């Protein structure tokens, strides 16, 4: 009896894990394709349009190609660390998805410390990057890894400072509850509240998040023109694919966190478009969470497009500029912002 219960529980956990993994895979496949289209259009090109109708099968074809590639481990590399590094990078990118509220009641596991969990887990990935750089026995990889480490240390602080503003104002670390606190019309979203503090936190989150996921204005650790490809220079085949997957999964995660904390999560922009009202209108209750899932995905899509827009516009910053931006600009501003928010919570919000 006990064993049956246990098996049931394990089965449910496995099912959820597979569902989340599937969602992540589909999201990453789409994001890679969309990124190539968007960058192509911005550069007045067409982008992938040969594989399947409008090139929709391009990423699948690329993944199949990567499967067939020879898996090279350079001589002199630390074989075990070299093999395990992509996994260390990939697993945290996957684990973050556990607490993200995809829709009403569609959280894989709602933690009451969700926000801390996210910032803690997502910074494990940098260990994998350092391991990859070290194990490759290649100077470019090592330089890229060092840059990655210093960058992620520098940008972890502003991210947490920015995270703490909506947490202070909503008074909870649970992402589900943060989303519920933003219910109603769009002016209830965190972005449009507490004027100088939350919009500033949103901006900081966006800038520091871009640095955290290493996209172009801040992709100093894989800067193609300086370091061949940074920490993944020596990687090929499926290991490279895992790095790639983790990178794009992280860009979706950033969008999801921004949407959850600032843009109302799965709440519709107008109350009338919400799940409760639509369900009442059409009398279909199971659609409940699917509608909110749709809103969540739509908002994430918009944020991801914004990230792609920024990444195809801005040139790469220098290493010292990158460090200056974090330590001299974002962190002081974030600290002042935190102070202001604290005062706001204590004196106005009682």
């Amino acid at each position: 009896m006990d064993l049956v219960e246990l098996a049931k529980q394990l089965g449910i956990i496995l099912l959820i894990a597979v569902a989340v993994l599937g969602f992540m895979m589909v999201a990453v496949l789409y994001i890679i394709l969309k990124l190539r289209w968007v960058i192509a259009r911005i550069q007045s090109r067409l982008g992938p349009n040969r594989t399947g109708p409008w090139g929709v099968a391009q990423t699948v074809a690329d993944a199949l190609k990567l499967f067939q590639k020879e898996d090279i481990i350079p001589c002199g590399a630390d074989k075990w660390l070299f093999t395990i590094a992509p996994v260390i990078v990939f697993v945290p990118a996957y684990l973050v998805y556990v607490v993200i509220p995809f829709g009403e009641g569609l959280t894989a596991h709602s933690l009451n410390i969700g926000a801390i969990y996210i910032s803690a887990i997502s910074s494990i990935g940098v260990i994998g990057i350092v391991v990859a750089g070290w194990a490759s026995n290649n100077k470019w990889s090592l330089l890229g890894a060092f840059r990655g480490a210093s960058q992620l240390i520098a940008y972890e602080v502003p991210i947490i400072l920015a995270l703490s503003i909506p947490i202070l104002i909503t008074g909870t670390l649970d992402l589900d509850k943060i989303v519920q606190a933003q219910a109603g019309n769009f002016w209830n979203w965190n972005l449009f509240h507490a004027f100088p503090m939350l919009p500033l936190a949103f901006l900081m989150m966006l800038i520091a998040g871009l640095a955290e996921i290493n996209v172009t204005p801040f992709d100093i650790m894989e800067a193609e023109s300086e370091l061949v490809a940074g920490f993944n220079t020596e990687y090929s085949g499926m290991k490279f694919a895992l790095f790639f997957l983790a990178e794009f999964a992280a860009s979706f995660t950033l969008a999801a966190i921004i949407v959850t904390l600032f843009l109302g999560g799965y709440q519709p922009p107008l109350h009338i478009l919400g799940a409760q009202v639509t369900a009442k209108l059409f009398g279909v209750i199971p659609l409940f969470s699917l509608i909110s899932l749709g809103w969540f995905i739509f908002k994430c899509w918009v944020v991801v497009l914004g990230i792609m827009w920024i990444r195809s516009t801005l040139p790469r910053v220098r290493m010292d500029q990158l460090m200056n931006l974090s330590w001299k600009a974002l962190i002081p501003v974030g600290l002042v912002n935190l102070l202001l928010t604290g005062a706001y919570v204590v004196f106005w919000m009682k």
Partner: protein
Amino acid sequence: MKSTLCKDIVNSFVSVAKGLWVTVTHWSPARPSVTELYPDVMPELPENFRGMPTLPVNPKTGRSGCIACGACMRMCPEQIIKVVADKGDPKERKPAEFTIDISRCMWCGLCMEVCPTNCLKPARTFEHACYTRECMVYTLEDLMKLGGTLPEEPESVESEESS
């Protein structure tokens, strides 16, 4: 000191916004892509496109205006043009054989420049790839076929012949 800091901050935001505006105008559907889908859609050749030399047919006489003078043969830096005059009719000079080995042609256009009757004209095609060296050698018939028929303007050819 403080004023430059404020200016720098404002400037950086403004310049980022400017860059984002430039890219979004390129992103918009009003700005079509410059990519040509060549094998599916043939590119539009410019008016003065200069392809390989060909011998267009004069619609009045039914053959090209070549008088087999051999000027192009002598001029060709690669020596790939071969002209043999037809000695059959002493009143009328015409080529019995006219071959161009296009595989070695460098598209200098000297043959067309030197031609006294202006009968060597650039083709408006560029798809000359094939699998053997032999098929790159264009004979008189090939050149006439590639050149097509001249438009109704035979006076220029005749006037030059008479002068």
